[in-house]
Every structure is written in C-alpha cells, then in structure tokens.
C-alpha cells in the first residue's frame, strides 16, 4: 500500500501560471492604460488586502474582529508621520508602517484576547475607537480634521500615479503570496486544524494560543500595509476616514460573497464588490442596505460563498491549501470484473 499527499492540482498549477501572466500584463498598464484605471485598482487593492486579512482572522483563526480598522488607520498615520516629519520616502514607509502595526498588535492582543467570541468582536471595536479618538487629539497630525501627505510634493503627477500603482500591485501579490505560503506551511496546517476543531487541534499538540497570536499579528501587518498604501494614494488622512467602520463592513461583505475560510474567497469577492460598486454606488443608502441584506442572505443560505461553489467541482481549486491523502490499496484477491468496487472505497480521500 502506498500513500501520496496531493498538494496541487492541474487547475491550481494553471491558476498560478495564469496569475503570473496576468501580473506581467498588469505591470505594463501605466504604459497603455488610463490613470483612472490605476486609481481604481489601487483602491480595490486596499479593500482586497484588508479583506484577505479579515478572512485569515475570522475564517481560519476563528477571531471575528470588527476592529481591524485600528491597524489600517495606524498604518496610514505611521506612513504619513514617517514621510512628513522624518523625511522618509512614503513608498518605502509602507512596509515600515505595516511593521509598526504588527508590533502594536502585540500589546493590543493582550487586551483583546481577554474576550471571547462575540464579545471579542465588540472589544476590538472599542480598541479601534480608542485609536481614533486618541489620534483626533494629536494636533501635530491635524487633530479631528486630519492632514495632508506633503512628503510627495515635488514629484510629478504621472510618476506618483505610476509608482503608486506598481507598489499597489506589488502589495497585492505580496499579500496573496504571504497568505498562500503561510497556509501551506506547517503553521498553516495547524491553523486549519484549529479552524476545524480547536479542541482536537489542541489535543494533537497544536499551540492554539500561540497560533492565534501569530495570525493576529500577521493580520495587523497586512491591514497596516493596506492603510499605508491607501493614504499614499489618497494624499489626505483624517481619523474618521482612517479608523472608519466601513473598512470592516466592506471586508465582511467581500469575504462572505467570495466564501469565508478559503483563500480564493476574498479574490472573487473583491471582483464582485468592484463590479457592484461601479454600477450601484450612486444609489447611496439603498446600495448599502442591499450590501447588508446580501451579506445576511449569504450567511443564512449560502455560507460557502461563490468560492465554495466553484471548489465543489472536483479539481477546480485555484489555490489549494488542503493536503489530500491518496491511498493506493492493492486488493488481496482480484476483484471480480462484474462487481467493480467503488473508486471511493479503493482510494479514500482524506482532506486536511
């Protein structure tokens, strides 16, 4: 009897190939596209990265945070402060801002992790509000009315827009690679075990508390990166924009549409969100009500989302993080030709 662990499929190899080709094409956009396309891409890139981090937290780590805007806003303000006050290049300040957000997640987690389940969610919200109100009292960054990113003055508009676009593309690729490689690693396997059953994972020797902290810090890093990127592109920051609840609201919507707990979910969800936004955002309150109702309906009736719908077709998994155990069993006696055993009995598939 031999066993093999299947970690990729033909579809997944094709996805990575097509994805790489798309990235190369996308990188040339500034030479043939319009600048409004680039701005749109940067904005949706921020939503996508933020949603991927929310998916990592809620879908894999079981931590339904509604306060990730704390790290988004912090990333934005750290980038701005490094650029305006310390003379850093704002583009280079993006990874630094993400790093500061990740570091800030360590003390914040000590408070937030004292609450569980639904109360953890609201607790993270309170923490985000404390960030917002505290920054609103700092006059150096404009207090409640906010301030502008002056560090990019003197750079031509075209250069700024092209660079922002390339950096955004790089951030998206980096975020996808980060989450994909993290979930395929040994830690990722542990995390998926926790997702499926916390008790069972703990009894197999998985350090649940340590894993949750790791996920929280990684998510804070990603959210900080998204925030820094957004405000490099936006050039103007205020506490209400940076620490706004709408970031989490849209992230929840994107993830629930695409499918929670699967890496393709936010990617599909972000495309759907972009399309909905393009056609319906003029309807204002009615549009927002529709998004809320859609999120409720997806949760009640279609929890696997569009990503799960596609994944149920065998082999159609774009970015597989599961390990499928394939056993080739040699039957002791030859199976009579007229009663072929079901393939499922011969090759039990164990998905991890």
């Amino acid at each position, binding site marked *: 009897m031999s066993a093999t662990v299947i970690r990729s499929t033909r579809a997944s190899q094709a996805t990575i190939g097509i994805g790489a080709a798309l990235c190369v094409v996308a990188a040339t956009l500034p030479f043939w596209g319009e600048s409004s396309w680039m701005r749109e891409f940067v904005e949706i890139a921020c939503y996508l990265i933020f949603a991927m981090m929310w998916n990592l937290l*809620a879908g894999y780590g*079981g931590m*339904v945070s*509604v306060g990730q805007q704390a790290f988004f806003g912090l990333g934005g303000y750290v980038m701005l402060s490094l650029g305006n006050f310390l003379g850093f290049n704002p583009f280079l300040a993006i990874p630094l801002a993400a790093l500061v957000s990740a570091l800030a997640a360590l003390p914040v987690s*000590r*408070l937030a992790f*004292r*609450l569980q*389940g*639904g*109360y953890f*969610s*609201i*607790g993270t*919200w*309170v*923490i985000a*509000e*404390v960030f917002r*109100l*505290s920054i*609103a*009292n700092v006059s150096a960054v404009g207090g409640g009315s906010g301030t502008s990113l002056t560090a990019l003055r003197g750079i031509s508009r075209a250069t700024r827009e092209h660079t922002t676009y390339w950096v955004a593309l790089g951030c998206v690729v980096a975020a996808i690679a980060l989450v994909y490689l993290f979930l395929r690693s040994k830690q990722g396997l542990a995390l998926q075990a926790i997702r499926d059953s916390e008790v069972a994972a703990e009894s197999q020797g998985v350090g649940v508390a340590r894993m949750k902290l790791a996920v929280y810090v990684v998510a804070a890093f990603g959210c900080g990166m998204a925030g820094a990127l957004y405000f490099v592109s936006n050039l103007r920051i205020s506490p209400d924009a940076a620490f706004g*609840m709408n970031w989490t*609201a849209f992230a*929840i919507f994107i993830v*629930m549409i695409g499918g*929670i707990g699967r890496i393709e979910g936010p990617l599909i969800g972000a495309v759907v969100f972009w399309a909905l936004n393009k056609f319906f955002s003029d309807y204002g*309150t*009615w549009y*927002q*009500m529709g*998004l*809320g*109702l859609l*999120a*409720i309906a997806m*949760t*009640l009736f279609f*929890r696997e989302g569009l990503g799960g719908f596609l994944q149920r077709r065998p082999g159609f998994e774009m970015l597989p993080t599961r390990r499928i155990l394939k056993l080739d069993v040699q039957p002791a006696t030859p199976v009579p030709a007229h009663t072929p055993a079901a393939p499922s009995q011969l090759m039990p598939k164990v998905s991890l």
Partner: protein
Amino acid sequence: MTETIIQGLLLGGLYCLFSLGLSLMFGVMRLTNIAQGDLIVAGGFAAISVAPLVGGHFVMAGVVLLPVAFAVGYALQRTVLNRTLGKDPLPSLVVTFGLSIVIQNALLELYSADPRSLDAGELATGSLNLGGDIYVGTLPLLILVAALACTAGLQLLFSTTSLGRAFRAVSDDREAAELMGLNSAKVYSVATALAFVLIALAGLFQGLRTTVSPADGPLLLLFAFESVIIGGMGSFWGTFVGALVLGVSQQVGFKFDPGWGVWFGHLVFLAVLLVRPNGLFPKTKG
C-alpha cells in the same frame, strides 16, 4: 465633584437600559447582537413617529411601542436569528452586523441625518432638590428608577419564575433542556422578545433625554457592551453597576475636557479589562 458624580450616576441609568437587552441575549443564547445600538435608535425614532398618532404623550407612545417590540423581537429570533446559533459565533455576528447596516441606512432614508428628540412635556424641565443646592432633573431620575426596576425585574424573573428557569436551562445545556421537554427555539424567541422590549424602552428614554440620529447606533452599542463587561458577565446587577461606573467615568472625563468624555469611558473599560478581566462582579450565570 458631587454634582459630576450624580450626573454620572443618572447617565449610567440610561446606559443600564442600553445594556440589559445585550446582556439578556448573550446570557441565554450566547448571541452577541451587534445591531443593539441601531435597534435602540430605531426604537427612539419609532416613538417619535408614534407619539403624534396617540395624542402626543410619550407614555402612550410607549404603551403602543413596547408590545410591538415584543412581537418584532419574537419574529426576528424565530425566523432569522435561530438559524445562526451554534458553536461558531460567526453567523450570528455577520447577520446582526448586516442588520445594523440595514437599519442605519433605512433610518437615514426615512428620517434624514438630522438628530431628533421626543417631547417630554413638563418632565423635561422639572427637577428635585436633594438638599443643599443640589438639584436633579426629574426625567434622568425617572430613567434611573426605571433601570433599577428593570434590573430587579430581570433578576427576579431569572431566579423565581418558570420562564427564568427555562432561560437558565437552555443557557446551561441546550440539549439536556430539550430532552426535558423545553422547546429551545421558543425559549430563545421569548428571550429576544423581552430584550427588544428593553431596547424599545431604552430608545424611548434616549429620545426623551437627548436626541437620536441614524448614525448614533454603534456608539450606543459600545456603551452597552462596556457596561456589561465592566460589571461582569452573567449578572444583571453587575451590568447595572457597570453602567453606573461607565456613566460616572464619562462625566468625569467631560469635566476635564468636553472632547474626552467618551474616550475616558473607553479607557476605564480597558483598564477594568486589564486588571479584572471578569468584571467587577463576576458571576457564572444569572
């Protein structure tokens, strides 16, 4: 300083009414209602719309509104929220979060973004002398008394009635309670119906005391939540005291700087969470 503390205690009475519904729903079915604050605001707007139809007095508005709230709560739990319950808190969180967004935008569409208030008549200006030169408003005092009565009522309901026993039973062990003949779906629905009555009452008082506007909900949710955690989960008296602590903290903050009140309340909450994670009056279950 005495003045500030008295004002804080009176404010705490209102916060207690905000938080009892949240505490009740979490206690009975581990459901965290993110739409709590928006429902309070919706209750306030409903009272404002109903009052002119029933002669303009807020008491009549309450008489009409509270039974409606009971029915709405029962129906919402029975048709939607019961489907979201389970070990995983995610579905109920996402559904109540979605509900919160729907309510906020529906109110914005119906009433515009302007803050509105409910006419309290002579109650609005009346005050009582507490000896010396300390006066308290009749309305805030009435709200504090109502909060006290609701807290005592809930505690009595839980400890002495058969409904309270059913609440505790499904909270402790849903499957065992069902084996004993309880219909947990119905028990949960009654709990939410009661929570909605408290929410409507809170909205009515909020509309009387200050104003309601569609964007207020999230902040009210945070105040409700902070009261529950400061006091200690699972005890209604704990929630009552937690609300008073939060009210006083905010008033003290306001006194230093008008922009600091809410912020200072948050800090006191975080300090309690750090020092006494189980709240000031921890108790396992009500």
